């Protein structure tokens, strides 16, 4: 009965190359073992120091978080975000884990954290925070989307008027416009809803068509959608779309400077965050197969010119430790918001998109994650 499958698989297997490289594997294994030995030695050292009541914190050569407007050095206190609590503009939303739905709370610039309540046993998910930190958004089991005004303590629920529950996609830099999307689990095509956060007006964007392989990555202050079109192993294109007619106003083709390559072998582009000016964007470059953020491209949205490629230093190590990763979480006035994960901590770093320098602004417990201002989570 299964002869056809056997034959087909055997036939297909003849296409395979020879991928095994013992020396490369041994080299990687040696690096990992060395890393573990160093970590174990460090752990023993810490235990010894603690036993001697030595108040020493092993920082592995890192500097303390630098004070930066809007970011606390660490999260210190937790309280509940009760209805009518108006804690004020948040710095970011802190999630208790990375790859699944879990507890989340808004964190203020002074480090206080207010936990978003569960709905019965349902945790809040599909989180977002407006670029000014005033509105936090999330969803429970129902299809509607909750928008919490952290300044007034009022909650607005955007009713789902589409094929499925709403999830956030992008904010305009001025924090006025929020794009939400909905689809059924079976469909790969989204329908979009535009919320004017200032007036509360909700508009379903029926004319906007975004095929699979493209994604709404931003919206300008003048309500124009920025749709990124992913191209395998090459730079993406960006369509500027009128939300009312669904027509392309213009298309920006991203281009490397003449004579240079900004994507290396095996790399592809995955995501884009728009700068507060609306004029440039930070684009994530991922190493194929590993889902590892290897670099950030800085592109001019007016001309399409890619002005810089900023490599992230530990990207090579992430191949042997996939949990050690960088993520791009947003783009604020102080630079691109990066999150650096390793087995000891999670750090928020700001990347200056002109100089390429990075500054650690907040250190968080390991295996946590954030939604930055203007950012969204799955």
């Amino acid at each position, binding site marked *: 009965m299964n002869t056809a*499958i056997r034959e087909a698989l055997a036939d297909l297997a003849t296409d395979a190359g020879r991928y095994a490289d013992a020396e490369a594997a041994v080299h990687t294994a040696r690096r*990992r073992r060395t890393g573990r030995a160093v970590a174990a030695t460090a752990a023993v050292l810490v235990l010894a120091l603690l036993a001697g009541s030595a108040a020493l914190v092993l920082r592995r050569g890192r500097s303390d978080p630098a004070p930066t407007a809007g970011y606390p050095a660490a999260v210190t206190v937790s309280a509940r975000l009760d209805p009518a609590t108006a804690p004020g503009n948040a710095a970011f939303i802190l999630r208790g884990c990375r790859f699944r739905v879990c507890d989340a709370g808004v964190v203020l610039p002074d480090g206080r954290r207010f936990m978003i309540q569960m709905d019965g046993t349902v945790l809040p998910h599909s989180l977002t925070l407006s670029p000014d930190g005033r509105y936090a958004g999330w969803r429970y089991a129902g299809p509607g989307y909750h928008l919490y005004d952290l300044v007034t303590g009022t909650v607005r629920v955007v009713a789902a008027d589409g094929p499925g529950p709403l999830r956030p996609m992008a904010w305009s830099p001025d924090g006025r416009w929020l794009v939400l999307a909905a689809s059924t689990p079976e469909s790969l095509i989204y329908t979009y809803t535009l919320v004017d956060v200032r007036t509360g007006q909700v508009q379903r964007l029926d004319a906007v068509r975004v095929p699979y392989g493209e994604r709404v990555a931003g919206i300008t202050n003048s309500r124009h959608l920025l749709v990124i079109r992913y191209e395998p192993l090459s730079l993406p294109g960006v369509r500027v779309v009128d939300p009312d007619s669904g027509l392309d106003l213009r298309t920006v083709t991203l281009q490397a400077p003449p004579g240079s390559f900004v994507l290396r072998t095996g790399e592809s582009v995955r995501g884009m965050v728009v700068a507060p000016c609306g004029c440039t964007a930070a684009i994530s470059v991922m190493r194929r197969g590993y*889902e590892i953020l290897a670099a950030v491209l800085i592109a001019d949205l007016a001309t399409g010119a890619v002005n810089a490629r900023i490599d992230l230093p530990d990207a090579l190590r992430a191949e042997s430790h996939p949990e050690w990763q960088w993520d791009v979480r947003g783009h604020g006035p102080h630079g691109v918001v990066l999150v650096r994960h390793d087995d000891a901590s999670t750090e928020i770093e700001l990347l200056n998109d002109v100089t390429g320098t990075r500054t650690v602004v907040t250190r968080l417990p390991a295996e946590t994650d954030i939604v930055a201002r203007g950012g969204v989570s799955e």
Partner: protein
Amino acid sequence: MDRYQGFREFVTARGTALSRTAYLLTGDHQLAQDLLQQALARTAVHWPRVLAGGNPEGYVRRVMVNERTSWWRRRRYTEVPGDPPSPAVEDQADSAVRRIAIARALRALPPRQRAVLVLRFFEDLTEAQAADALGCSVGTVKSQTHDAIARLRRLAPQLLAEEVGS
């Protein structure tokens, strides 16, 4: 003593077979290389223990299956489902076209279903061995196999035409 003693010989002897499994699990040369190298690196880290276990090939295979599933869970916007095979495939059922069609149909399967087909019908593992490699029960292997074949039938009926009557 070199802790990797025997590892290079193992890779030399079984590298081709493992490459084929990696290719069938991913359907892509570059991903197959990534998958196999990652599995071999993990195997090398624990080589003395893996060797003592007596089945290093099974260990590498299991790591590949788990890694592949893990990649799939972490994927974001990378994987575009392949087009369903063209109805005209059977009319020109030569080897190359058949290969493309089965590759497309396999690509449309979830990684666990794809893995169970590769382990059962390419590696010729028993249900119990496949369950061990996948880290699941024999019952799960049976149900995954059934679901995978049913889905292949829908995606590529011409490839399994001789089974329809059976």
